[in-house]
């Protein structure tokens, strides 16, 4: 039973991914888009029917990635290798190494206290009971840290960085300091 269900889910996911690609190619877009949506919904429905809602949905979501990647791979275009290297224009300006090192360190190290402070604020302010507040914060903390890292490393101006960091720190301090003392 499990093997049949798995095979049906795989087939639906493959059909859905194929239809998505056809829609992307542009030929009868709405027809293929509807077909893709139907096939993917069917895959989720079969997974939920076969394995229950709690694990059926994650199974369908996990299975979609290899199915889509297989469709992408089968639709690849193979071109002959270039006979001479192409001179390409960089999208990045050439930074001096110490500046890059400083940006990496700033994005990784400076964001730790900021992320922890935001986590503390969330653990205090989220409108749930204590247990839920802490667990939701635990889930949000890596995302907050990652977004802080992404922003810090992408921001070009030290002034923006300083103003942003100071603003967040002041807000967190305003929330947390009265609770600590």
């Amino acid at each position, binding site marked *: 039973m*499990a093997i049949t269900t*798995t095979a049906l889910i795989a087939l639906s996911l493959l059909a859905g991914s194929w239809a998505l690609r056809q829609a*992307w*190619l542009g030929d009868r877009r709405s027809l293929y888009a509807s077909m893709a949506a139907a096939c993917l919904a069917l895959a989720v429905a079969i997974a939920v029917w076969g*394995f*229950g809602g*709690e*694990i059926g949905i*994650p*199974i369908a979501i*996990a299975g*979609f*990635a*290899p199915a*889509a*990647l297989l469709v*992408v791979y089968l*639709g*690849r*275009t*193979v*071109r*002959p290798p*270039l006979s001479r*290297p192409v*001179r*390409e224009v*960089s*999208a*990045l300006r*050439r*930074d001096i190494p110490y500046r890059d090192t400083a940006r*990496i360190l700033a*994005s*990784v190290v400076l964001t730790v206290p900021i992320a922890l402070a935001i*986590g503390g604020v969330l*653990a*205090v302010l989220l409108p*749930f009971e*204590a*247990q*839920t*507040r*802490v*667990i*939701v*914060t*635990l*889930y949000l*903390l*890596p*995302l907050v*840290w*990652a*977004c802080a*890292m*992404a922003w810090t*490393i*992408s921001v070009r101006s030290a002034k923006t960085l300083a103003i942003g960091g100071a603003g967040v720190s002041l807000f967190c301090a305003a929330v*947390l300091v009265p609770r600590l003392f």
Partner: protein
Amino acid sequence: MRWNPSLVRATLAGHSLLGLAFGALIYQVCLTGTLSVFATEFRRWEQPAAPHVTAVSPEGYANAAALALEQPGGAAGGRVMLVGPKPDLPRFEIRLPESAGGGYADDSGKVAEPVHTPWIDFVVHLHDDLHIPYPWGSLIVGLSGAVLLALIVTGICAHSRIFRDAFHLRRGGSERLSEADLHNRMSVWALPFHIAVALTGTILALVWIVAPVLLPLGYDGDMRRALTELVGPQPQARETAQAPLPDIAALIHHVEAEHAPAKVNFVDIGQAGTAGQLIKLIATAPGDLARGEEYYFAADGRFIGSGGYAKGPAAKQMIGALTPLHFGTFGGFTTRLIYGILGLVLCGICVTGVNIWLIRQRSLGRGSETWTRVWTAVVWGQPAALCFAATGAYIGASSLPVLYVMFTVLSIITSTIIPPQRLKQFLIGSTSVALLSAITANAFTHGLFPADPIAIAVNVILAMAALGFGWTARHTSSE
């Protein structure tokens, strides 16, 4: 849809910097994580002669607990963990972390042989904390997860043609375009997996490091309540007087009757055989995303409460789902296979990401042969080092981490000796040889046809992988 060009430029620069700085670490964590997904199969491969137990009766658990306490220098006052069999790991394991003893037992709870799975233990440990003492190892692994999340955020912001190029995969032609297509397609289509694995991995690695900050704030300083609500009740440390175990079989019967079709497959006794002991039973039911529901009993067998990981509040269920979502254990072998494939995809994303940067630098006339060599040594040296460590485990190497570091350093030194064109070929070939040596060592130790058929299947798959690596080495251009 097009992103703002200045946002794209800025985030692409940030994406490149983060990727370059942490590419090797993330690749290593992903590679060992991919192997860890199949830890149960590798455990059976390393110890195929251990007793094959498909089910343990409540009386079997009770007997195992009693035997653990009776052992000379036994577990009294310490922790006794009885890990029941699962469909993919038909073993009954007795764990006594604070005393010698324990091992794989038969279904009556009598220990037959100690657990001896050094290689997969080494790999899992490498994935968890890089064999670096707490908290630094966990911190570095947690950092790699957070950086991976940051790379996902910057990658999405930098990918201005995310929908327009959704199915474009151009191979051949411009090397950079070819690598970029592969990098972007693998990143975008497996995005939910990447986010789930990075998020849960970061939480698992950092939970006990950030808890001292979050718990006092969330619970207004009431740490006792925080620990009871989040971790469950703890043994009474002051109650150290000897006391008999409660009727564990009756407790298991009670839980299984009350919560059918759930089956108890883990018994954890804290401060065993004392008046302060605490019995925790974990029961799993089909269809649960959580790894199991916990039921707590006091020293006298009185029911204290349940953990709520499977049937409790949504927040507790989120905690219960962390490990299954990270390792893909929620849907049997099929989901683990999908996780294995997507784990390799994640490794491929790390590799192609750095490759794109190296190719771009080369095309701008700023290429560094040293960094190209070192990156090749990292990418292809790691599988070889891990496989040679497996052989080392069979021939009784005293320290697998040292052996692994030695092979890793050796592969990097090799990159300075062997011409760069031949380096990749050499390291892929080495991985093939390392795999064959691991299979040979396994066959010498356990015979060609060990008792556990999974061990044979693993050997066959490893042999196919060795052939695949050998074929790739032979057909890798040395030009």
